């Protein structure tokens, strides 16, 4: 007999088969992913997902008997009171029981399994070629940080590192046998004793000794330029690993639940997208009618408000929040504005000015999503008036969405295309 340890064999051998399976049921999973968007909060899309699939779609067919057709007989254990000839009424709804006869068995279970977070996201961003895209489009803010980086042999005097310098000086002195000051002192005191004793020979000998010691001390400097060591600093760029995403939405009466749902999908995608790039992504929801306020997610999507539409109010609020909580040096700022395109005429100049002067300079990216029913013809006010800005600012993009199925391509276009001339 021999024992073999197979535990070290490559793990996750099943991943290959799992990959094949996931490929096979992709269309179903895509549907599940779609549903997930509808039911989840903006921020928790990126977790694993339980996918259930109609079992017939992944069944492996083989010839089998129709249930409940034909005659069969079987043996069961645990008889308690049945006598020969007893008749038991068959359960309703299922034509006779199979030989397994589980009382609550139901063979039509959907096939359920867990999709890992990675698999989920991969499917989500299937055609988006995220890595390349992220590099190109998501610029990180960087701040320079000065950090110690060892020692240098030259530098500004104020960076002189005494400790290192003296250490080198000491070792050099020891190596080159530079006499110590104390040796010289003791020789001089001996000289004095010799002089007072009038010992001529001794005086001459000590004088010579003192002379050589002095020469040596002169030749081997106490502190040489080769000893000097300076602190060295380097500027390392540190990527800002946090981002804040502003969701601006017009919540005036003209925005129906459906339109909000469209906007929500876009926000979810954007959030997920940012999530893959930054360590921390914060969400700020700002809704506006003629005034704007920061609200929580629930209110944002489902709250009811009436009133006119003043876009600039939202931009002001956003500006205020940035100043207050999100210093531009530390945060990457993204904004997505969803609206049905209405704004008061008199507000437009102010809106454009705010965008151009305050908001766009600090944003990494600003997306304007116009959600509307198909019925509306022609360009809306915002759409039209944003046009000149779009031309000038490559990180300002806009898109038009009318159906949930549009969201994905629109998102794709916004982020994948190099064309800003839309």
């Amino acid at each position, binding site marked *: *007999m*021999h*024992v*073999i*340890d*197979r*535990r070290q064999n490559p*793990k*996750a*051998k*099943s991943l*290959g*088969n*799992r*990959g*094949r*399976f*996931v490929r*096979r049921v992709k269309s179903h999973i895509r549907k599940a992913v779609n549903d997930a968007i509808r039911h989840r909060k903006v921020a928790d899309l990126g977790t694993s997902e339980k996918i259930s699939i109609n079992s017939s779609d*992944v*069944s*492996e*067919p*083989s*010839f*089998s*008997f*129709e249930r*409940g*057709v*034909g*005659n*069969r*007989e*079987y*043996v*069961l*254990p*645990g*008889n*308690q009171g*049945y*006598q*020969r*000839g007893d*008749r*038991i*009424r*068959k359960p309703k709804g299922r*034509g*006779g*029981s199979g*030989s*397994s*006869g589980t*009382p609550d068995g139901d063979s039509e279970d959907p*096939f*359920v*399994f*867990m999709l890992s977070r990675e698999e989920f996201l991969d499917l989500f961003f299937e055609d988006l070629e995220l890595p390349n895209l992220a590099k190109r489009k998501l610029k990180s803010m960087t701040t320079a940080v000065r950090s110690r980086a060892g020692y240098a042999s030259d530098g500004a005097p104020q960076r002189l590192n005494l400790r290192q310098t003296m250490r080198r000086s000491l070792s050099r002195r020891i190596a080159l046998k530079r006499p110590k000051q104390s040796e010289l002192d003791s020789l001089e005191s001996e000289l004095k004793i010799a002089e007072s004793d009038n010992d001529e020979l001794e005086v001459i000998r000590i004088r010579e000794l003192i002379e050589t010691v002095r020469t040596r001390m002169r030749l081997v400097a106490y502190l040489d330029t080769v000893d000097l060591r300076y602190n060295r600093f380097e500027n390392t760029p540190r990527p800002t690993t946090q981002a804040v995403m502003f969701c601006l939405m017009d919540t005036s009466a003209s925005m129906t639940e459906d339109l909000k749902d469209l906007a929500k999908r876009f926000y979810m995608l954007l959030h997920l997208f940012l999530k893959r790039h930054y360590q921390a992504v914060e969400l700020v929801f700002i809704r506006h009618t003629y005034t704007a306020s920061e609200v929580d997610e629930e209110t944002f999507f489902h709250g009811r408000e009436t009133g006119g539409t003043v876009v600039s109010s939202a931009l002001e609020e956003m500006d205020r929040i940035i100043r207050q909580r999100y210093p531009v040096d530390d945060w990457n700022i993204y904004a997505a504005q969803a609206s049905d395109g209405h704004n008061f005429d008199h507000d437009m100049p102010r809106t454009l000015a705010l965008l151009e002067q305050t908001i766009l300079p600090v944003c990494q990216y600003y997306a304007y999503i116009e959600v509307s029913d198909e019925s509306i013809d022609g360009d809306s006010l915002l759409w039209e008036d944003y046009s000149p800005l779009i031309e000038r600012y490559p990180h300002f993009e806009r898109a038009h969405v009318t159906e949930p199925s549009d969201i994905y391509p629109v998102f794709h276009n916004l982020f994948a295309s190099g064309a800003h001339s839309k």
Partner: protein
Amino acid sequence: MKKGTQDLIYRGSEWDFDLLQRAHDAIEVIAVDGLGLDVYPNQIEVITSEQMLDAYASVGMPMMYSHWSFGKHFAREELLYRKGAQALAYELVINSNPCVSYVMEENTMTMQTLVIAHAAFGHNHFFKNNHLFRQWTRADRVLDDLSYAKQYVAKCEEAHGVQAVESLLDAAHALMAYGVSRYAPKKPIRPKDRIAKYEARRDHEQSTFNDLYRTLPASKRESHRDENSSDSQGDTVKLPEENLLLFLADHAPKLKDWQRELLHIVRRTAQYFYPQRQTKLMNEGCATFVHYQIMNQLYDGGQIDDGAMLEFLHMHSAVVRQPRFDDQRYSGLNPYALGFAMMRDIARICDDPDEEDRQWFPQIAGNGDAMGTLRTAWAEYRDESFILQFLSPRLIRELHLFAVGDRSDSPFVSVDAIHDESGYREIRRCLADQYDLSRHDPEIEVTEADLTGNRRLVLTHRVREGRLLAKDDCNRTLRHIAALWGYRVRLIETDSQTGATLNDYDVVALP
């Protein structure tokens, strides 16, 4: 409590490789000298729970080729396992020479000992001696064949694309139950040799390729070849043919060589499982009986301590639990429970029979050679004949077995026999039938195959007891067959008694 003189093999629950070796050696002494078992050399492999799940998903074969359906099963098993709805098997064993048993690293030492006794000796003995295994499987080739299949499938995927291989395997898997010739299989040339031959021929063709031949008038050659091939095919078709996979692999007009070979691979896998499906009850019964004997003897000999014995009894009783039919947990007769009970019952009849046993089993009652009788039974029978021969009235009473008849035209099921004098034989026959594979799977044969004309394939399902095929599954399976065959496929359901046609399916191959 009597204690033997020997030292404990181990203490506590931790195991290491030395202890496994010691346990194996101690068990070997009992199994071979005491119980007279005849086993292949053992090879014990330690794996992790994940690897065990993986093996589970691939029909119990840790070296299976890749296919999406294994991924599907893995996903399901994993979910059940994570939810705690299902525990993992402690062990897996492959019918090969040397006999490979897989044990999990999480097992305690007692469990490892139990697994060695159960798999490395119980199953091992059964594999080596049962006539079905001897006849249908080649223990010395199993591992080779498996690794060959894995490599070949991977190679095909590389050469012809994952999609093409996958759809072919889908179709082949649908016919897995029809990949066995029930009558003595001939020993085919090894697939490796066949491929070597095929490759040699291809090389030869390539090396002697002369572009000039291409300029010959094409029509002549085409027709010539057609005549030739149809002649040769016509000669070899023998109908009816119950082995659908074999038939398709040999005669499907449109398949390429690699596709034929894949069909053969699936067919051989099916064949490997054929004896297992027929002897599930006996195999588990044998292994359970053997581990029970061995663990008891180890304990009696003082080689395992009280704690280990209690742990073993706990596991053993869980394994042989048989819930009643109206229990929530009931899921058919537990082969471990029934098998173990029957083995014990036979041993009892041999050693300590009562009057009833002498009357029912005159050949073995009181012969005093329980192990010898069991070894003969393990070697010579399969589930169906084993039950028919050895299920005793006493066991029927103990298990309170009763037979139920279910006729489709009646709104009632009827209790046909219970554990009384008039019911024993009826229950025994009925239970034996339940283990008869030919009643389990629909009986479908190729009855007509036109290889020269319209190339239609006709299958016939001989319907017994009015049990028709499930329509949905049948149509889908037929589509798979049509995909393999390449032309129209028809399936006729005829009543086996009257010969009347009950159903007629017709499926055209999608281009």
